[in-house]
């Protein structure tokens, strides 16, 4: 109860500050929009897809997962600024719930991701993408779990390294292989066997597969629940770990 109240408190403040400066939501969506407009048109022939709409069904889910991963991983920068301004220390002298300090922020990131995802989806609709609303909502749930996980990891790491200079290369190093091994830009079905084997160990590749299944309306596909289960478990682990970083002494 207290945790829920405190989380709401932190979340409210973060959303208020986000709305005061909403330009960041649009900056974040700029790159995926560019992919959508300037890269996706190549895919119909590259993937031998029967139509542009079919190509989008493969590409848009990957793009959304990409957005969720990157959007989350780089949230730690904002936290370092708060750390420097003394906001975290000020919060930590109060009896406020430690997990709420994390969750309030991560939930803001989830909300801002969903807004971005909606923008991308609407744009994709203009390119004849069609997806059933129930499947779309499940896909958004998957994206929300990914964003929760990656932003929690980013916050936890930010509290450990305490400097932008260390956080940026660290997050890039993590993000690069994760991105390439998840079949985001092109499906891993095109990949040689060893690469597919490697990708099996990447949880995000399961998430991408699951989201793609949802976008083609294949709700019964086992990849859907597998993807959801893996991201759910990992986000719980990430949140638990990051909340501990908030509870521990940080300056």
């Amino acid at each position, binding site marked *: 109860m*207290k945790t829920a109240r405190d989380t709401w*408190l932190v979340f409210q403040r973060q959303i208020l*500050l986000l709305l005061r400066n909403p330009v960041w939501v649009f900056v974040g969506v700029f790159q995926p929009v560019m992919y959508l407009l300037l890269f996706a048109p190549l895919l119909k022939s590259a993937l031998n897809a029967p139509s542009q709409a079919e190509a989008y069904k493969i590409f848009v889910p990957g793009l959304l997962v990409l957005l969720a991963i990157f959007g989350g991983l780089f949230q730690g920068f904002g936290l370092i600024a708060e750390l420097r301004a003394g906001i975290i*220390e*000020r919060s930590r002298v*109060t*009896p*406020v719930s430690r997990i709420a300090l994390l969750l309030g922020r991560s939930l803001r990131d989830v909300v801002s991701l969903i807004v971005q995802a909606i923008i991308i989806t609407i744009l994709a609709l203009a390119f004849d993408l069609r997806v059933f609303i129930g499947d779309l909502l499940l896909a958004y749930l998957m994206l929300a779990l990914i964003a929760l996980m990656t932003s929690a990891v980013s916050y936890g790491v930010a509290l450990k390294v305490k400097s932008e200079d260390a956080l940026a290369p660290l997050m890039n190093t993590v993000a690069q292989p994760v991105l390439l091994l998840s079949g985001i830009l092109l499906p891993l079905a095109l990949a040689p066997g060893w690469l597919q084997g490697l990708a099996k160990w990447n949880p995000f590749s399961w998430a991408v597969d699951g989201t793609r299944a949802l976008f083609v309306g294949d709700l019964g596909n086992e990849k859907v629940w597998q993807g959801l289960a893996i991201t759910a478990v990992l986000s719980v682990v990430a949140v638990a770990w990051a909340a501990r970083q908030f509870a521990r002494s940080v300056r």
Partner: protein
Amino acid sequence: MIETRGLRKSYRSRVGRETRTVDAVRGVDLKVAEGEIFGFLGPNGAGKTTTLRMLATLIEPDGGEAVIAGADLRKAPAEVRRRIGYVAQGGSTWDESTAREELVLHARMYGIGKADAQARTVRALEAFQLTEYADRKCKTYSGGQRRRVEIALGIIHEPKIVFLDEPTTGLDPQSRAYMWDEIRRLRAEGMTVFITTHYLDEADALCDRIAIMDHGEVVVEGTPADLKREISGDVLVVGLDPDAVEPANSLLADEPYVRKVESGGDSGLRLYVDEGATAIPWILRRVDGAGLKLRSIELQRPSLDDVFLTKTGRSLRES
């Protein structure tokens, strides 16, 4: 209000490949009474902030005990948090928020309901003369205004004790004097105030009792007046020509009535003597007899810096 025994904290730091243990605080025993302004004085790096952060539950002590406002620091840190306020040295407000937003949020983090938090905020803004700027963003405030917001944040939940880490560092003289009045007002409202400072005049003028810390230990504790009285005798400040300082130093150090000589750089010497009035003519005669030119001589009562000097062998001004 605060009682600590043997509070310790050490850090491990890595220098190259070597790991070194730095004892930041090595066993601090303190007693702070209810309703007093307690000053924690010492040079930078003495361990003041580390001690303060331990008392405020921000870092866990390696050893020792502390009871703060009746709650055990080691066993019930959450209870300690409810009863204390803490204002950090480096600031604690967000550029893009307003003072009102910050105050309401902070009150609510203590579990205070929304309406109550808003009412407290109005009162705090009034008390700290911030009403006029309450709805402007913090980045538009002057240093003094911002510090007032931070102090208001520290006491919004009406704690029994408030810890202020160097509350006047970086403020102009006017804001500083204003801050002293604010701190006295908190005491008048029944709060116990624990401040750290490296300003001697601040400790002297503001604090009911002080503890002086050096190298992680409390070297002396008492009221400023008692501590100064303990240094029996007077201080003579002798002004000399720059080239006369060194010869006069060796000359006077051997005199039986001089207990200690400290060089004040090019400008002269500080002499610690039993009785200033009788020592002055002796000094005049001795310096004059050696053919050195004396520019001025002044009799002073010992200051807190002299207390620090006699306890540590160093001047606080230099360290």
